[in-house]
């Protein structure tokens, strides 16, 4: 249930435009910020946890995943070039799987890996905080990619819905309403990061078990729904 040709076209599409430069921007900001904080004196003692957790897993991962996840399918649907892909006997499930895996891999590369690098820079070596945030970010890369691919398959302006999700749900509501933590990808990431590093400054509200279980359920549900939506893909009336 995976199609290398679809994956290859998706990969080429991602890096065939100038937009690809944008993908690296959040990670770049993270690294520059870390370098700046590292070189400056007088910063608060627990800054690496704040930077890796809040900025890395909490902002860089969802933003990068948003840019990439809505690019792999959303922009193709927007300009109708997806028709060339769908006018083939390839099962829709394979299309969704290929698109999502490329989005995940690229997000991993452009967001999770930079979190690890930032962690190593911040702490001057490979410590549990960096590893935890890296693993949490990797989990975030997977779930966010599934979510944004699903949104791209389901609605007409995926970027707007994805932004609204990140800004309103992840940043606003899940900080205000305590029950929302169970449905927050950021919290799942932080749950993993916290389990590895035991760093309380991460502000993790969930432990690792519910985090992982919920994340797996989310991935399955999102992929299934994305496949259903893509199977029922209809051309828009002009």
């Amino acid at each position, binding site marked *: 249930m995976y199609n290398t040709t679809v994956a290859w*076209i998706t990969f080429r599409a991602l890096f065939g435009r100038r937009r690809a430069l944008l993908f690296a921007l959040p990670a770049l900001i993270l690294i520059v910020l870390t370098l700046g904080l590292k070189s400056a004196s007088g910063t608060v003692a627990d800054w690496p946890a704040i930077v890796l957790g809040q900025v890395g897993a909490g902002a860089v991962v969802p933003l990068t995943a948003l840019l990439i996840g809505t690019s792999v399918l959303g922009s193709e649907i927007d300009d109708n070039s997806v028709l*060339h892909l769908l*006018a083939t006997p*390839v099962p829709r499930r394979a299309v969704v799987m290929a698109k999502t895996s490329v989005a995940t891999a690229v997000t991993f590369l452009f967001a999770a890996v930079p979190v690890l690098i930032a962690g190593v820079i911040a702490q001057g070596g490979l410590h549990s905080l960096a590893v935890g945030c890296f693993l949490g970010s990797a989990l975030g890369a997977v779930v966010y990619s599934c979510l944004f691919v699903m949104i791209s398959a389901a609605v007409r302006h995926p970027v707007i819905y994805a932004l609204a999700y990140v800004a309103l749900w992840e940043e606003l509501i899940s900080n205000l309403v305590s029950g929302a933590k169970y449905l927050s990808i950021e919290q799942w990431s932080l749950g993993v990061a916290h389990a590895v590093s035991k760093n309380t400054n991460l502000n993790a509200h969930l432990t690792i078990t519910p985090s992982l279980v919920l994340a797996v359920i989310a991935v399955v549900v999102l992929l299934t729904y994305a496949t259903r939506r893509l199977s029922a893909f209809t051309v828009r009336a002009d």
Partner: protein
Amino acid sequence: MTAVEPSAVPAARTAPEPATPAVVSFDHVTHWYGNVVAVNDISLELGPGVTGLLGPNGAGKSTILHLLSGFLSPSRGSVTIGGVAPWRHPAIFDTVGLVPERDSVYAFLTAREFVLASAKLHKLPDPKAAAERALQLVEMIDAADRPIQTYSKGMRQRAKVAAALVHDPKVLLLDEPFNGMDPRQRMHMMDLLRDLGQRGRTILFSSHILEEVERLADTVQVVVAGRLAASGDYRTIRRLMTTRPHVFLLRSTDDRELARVLMASPAVQGVALTKDGLEVRASDHGTFTRKLARSCRDAGIGLREVIPSDESLESVFAYLVGA
């Protein structure tokens, strides 16, 4: 202005292959978006050969092609292609090729990569060879290694056709395939499609350019406001419009005398002398054409030109749309 009731026109296809079963069929298909009915109770059957799909803007041509390729589901009725309903059934693309209208391709790929990817997506045994063959068919070998974004519209169109042809589909659906092509590319594409039609492929293409449809299509399907207004050979369709006199432009050695002679015939409804010649409106096509040469000979008039001025697809179309 009622030439003919659209529904009264029998599906009088001049089917050259009555034995072959229909490859594409619409059975009382209706499709609506919200309150807008795009396609209204259409039944049609297509067999091998080239069929032109005509209609004014917004008549539902694209909707028909999208229903056929499974990108829309019929709200009522059934669509089948090779006996299978295409909606939610991408496997039909094993035998179907689609050239969508919108000028959107993977512009960052070269034509060769694009067609090769299409070959691989169709799981062809030798994708490379199939891609080369398809590129050859559309004469794109020379430019095949340039990214598609550097192409002109006509070249992009040909790359799309190559990708749709790569698995040698039994059914080829093309939405405005000649858009943006220059005269030479048009002629070549027409030759290609005509050839495929003759080799037993079922080809349905939509177009606004009636001269092209006239030259390429064996039969036409005319859609007006979501309804199927006529189908078959356009000349036959014209003859079926019995309430409309046939207009001929005649030139002779003595137009005035010819006018007098023709007015005597009950098959002729009216005659007008114009600067281009004699414009004759014949109510009975058969009788008029059969008597014309003899009448001239009997009256000693030299017949120089006989031009059926409303037998083009253009006028047939205008009658159908205006009716």
